[in-house]
């Protein structure tokens, strides 16, 4: 299979993730969509690393996984805090700050 296929696929996944962030309101799902985007990036990285024939991209992908995990943790922590604070778990309703 050509590398191009993988890249195009990753582009597809990336955009799907983006769409998700833009249209979902539950913070949890939004976090999931972030995961989607990061994974799309990972796919691209790995594919490219295959294409250029060095493994740096794969390592990059691994690091990205770690970072994604961190973001998830913090995100979920925030969600919990918000829940504790009896605020709605809907990003549209969190709009005290604007203008």
């Amino acid at each position, binding site marked *: 299979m050509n590398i191009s296929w993988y890249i195009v696929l990753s582009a597809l996944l990336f955009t799907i993730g*983006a769409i998700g*962030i*833009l*249209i979902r*309101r539950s913070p949890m799902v939004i976090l999931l969509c972030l995961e989607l985007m990061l994974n799309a990036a990972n796919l691209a990285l790995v594919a490219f690393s295959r294409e250029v024939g060095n493994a740096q991209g794969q390592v990059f992908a691994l690091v990205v996984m770690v970072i994604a995990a961190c973001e998830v943790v913090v995100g979920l922590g925030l969600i919990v805090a918000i829940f504790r604070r009896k605020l709605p778990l809907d*990003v*549209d309703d*969190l*709009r*005290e*700050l*604007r*203008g």
Partner: protein
Amino acid sequence: MSATSWAWLVLLFPLLGSITIALGFRRTSWRFAGIVGTAAIALAFVCGIGALVCLLGEDPEARHHASSLWEYASVASLQIKLGIYVDPLSVFMVLVVSGVSTLIHLYSFGYMQSDQGYHRFFSYLNFFVFSMLLLVLAGNFVLLIVGWAFVGFASYALISYWYRRTTATRAGMKAFVINVIGDIGLVLAAFLIFQQLGTFEYTEVFAKAPQVFHTNEWTVTAICLLLLVGAFAKSAQLPFHTWLPDAMEGPTPVSSLIHAATMVTAGVYLIARTHVLFVLAPTAADIAAFVGLATLLVAASIALVMTDLKRAIAYSTMSQIGYMVVGVSIGAYSAGMFHLMTHAFFKALLFMAAGSIIAAMANEQNIDKMSGFGKAMKFTSVTMLCGALALAAFPLTSGFFSKDEILAYASARGGMYLIFTVLGYFGALLTAIYTFRLIFRVLRGDPCAEAQELIDTGHVAHAEAPFNPATGETEDTDVGFPGAEHHIAEQSPPMKLAMGVLAFLALFAGFIQVPGVDETVTHFLDPVFADSPLAAIHPSNTAAWIGLAIGAAISLAGIAIAYWLYVASPETPRRLQQRFAAVHTFLYNKWYFDEAIDFLVVRPALAIGRFANDVFERFVIDGAITGGTEETVGRAGAIVRSFQNGIVRTYGLFLIFGAVGLALYFLIQQS
């Protein structure tokens, strides 16, 4: 001591007087002010004599000197010195001005006694004399303009002397603005001269002009016309004359000094002074002459119907100046100057007398209300009669000689200029009529109330509440003239002295310039005008005497008519009025000059001002420029904030949008 140093002294004394009086107004008495003021001018006169003597000591060709104190305003490209120019012409003017002024100061010393602003008055008056002398002595056009404007200011200050009177302040403003227009004419003329000749100094200008310009070249014509604007504005010639009648708001001594004897004749002096240029621009000269003629007749016609004593005399002043302008423009220089002198005498005298009478009438100026002062105020009426005779050119009085000399010259020059002779004589007729109209109506007849009171009690009547004759509104007395106790009419010796001297001069000054006998003035002034071809023209003695004869006849005729109209059959005037109602109203409204100017100049200016204020400033400056910008920025801000709606997904949308846009730009930019 040389002529120039005398001249500097001439300038010095009035200035010192003015300053001293002004600074001392708190500590010194009114007497001090009066004495200092009069003395200063007297000294100036004396110095004038000194200068005269010096000049006469020299041979006629050498009788001109320039002298300068310091560089007034000079840079590499143009020099302006603080310099004077002394020659017979200027000395002549100095003598006339300072002489008449001395007498009028004397008169004012008594006349203004009870006025609150005594110091201010004399300070201004001295300042005026200083400015007038500066004007006549100036050695270059810039200094001329300075003196020119100074007298304008002095006249303004003295016209609105009783500054609580709105009429006075308005009249002052009018006079000043019109005079400024005149100044502008002079300034432009100066610029043009500088452009052509590269200097402002009289001597150089008059020396260079004949080489640079050839006759009737447009530049020199333009210069002369611009000079005329200045001259006419100052000398109240058409169409700039409207300020002079209003100027009568000022105290009577002011009217007699500034608005009869001296300042208003500055225009005549100017034309005489720059005759070199006018010779080069005959067209301009003729225009000047015709304007003078027109003024002469128009003013005379108005004077026929004026009921306000002072204004009537003012119009006669205009008309007399018309004679002078005609004279100096057509080339009768010395004649014109001579008439200037005699006119100064008798017109000053007439005003003094009028002032005395007005005082006796408790500020009433309307001649319809006056009568019978002949009995009430002997001295005044006698002197007034002398003045009137001179004005009417009664044979052998001063006016008789001076006026007729001009007309004789005109006929001698012949051709087109005969018009001036003919119409000049017609003007003389009118003059005689209106002059004696005043005399008969004011002096003869049975005394009016005030006159009667004067006869009975020897006390001058005065209104219980002083009022403004023009509007009739009551005066606020702290500027109040006449003050509470005011009994000055012909009772104060200084006044009598001044009037007496002037009466004498008015009657007999003519004899210094009798055609064919002794033409003192002509001889004295000849060196100045020697360079003018027109000066060569000279009416033969016979012609001159014929002219005098005609003049005498006309003047007598005029007096006779006046007698018939106002004494023999007092009904006639009224009938004439009804018969020629239109004419009368037309004349009575002074040919509607004020209205015309108001319509043509004043209203448009104000309209523009209002437009600028209410429309332009509000809608363009504040509206479009300032407001527009604010509006735009504000709108933009609103848009930005509306995108900032606090919903995180919108932010995400914009982020992706940015990404897409940027990527697109990059891709397009390259392919």
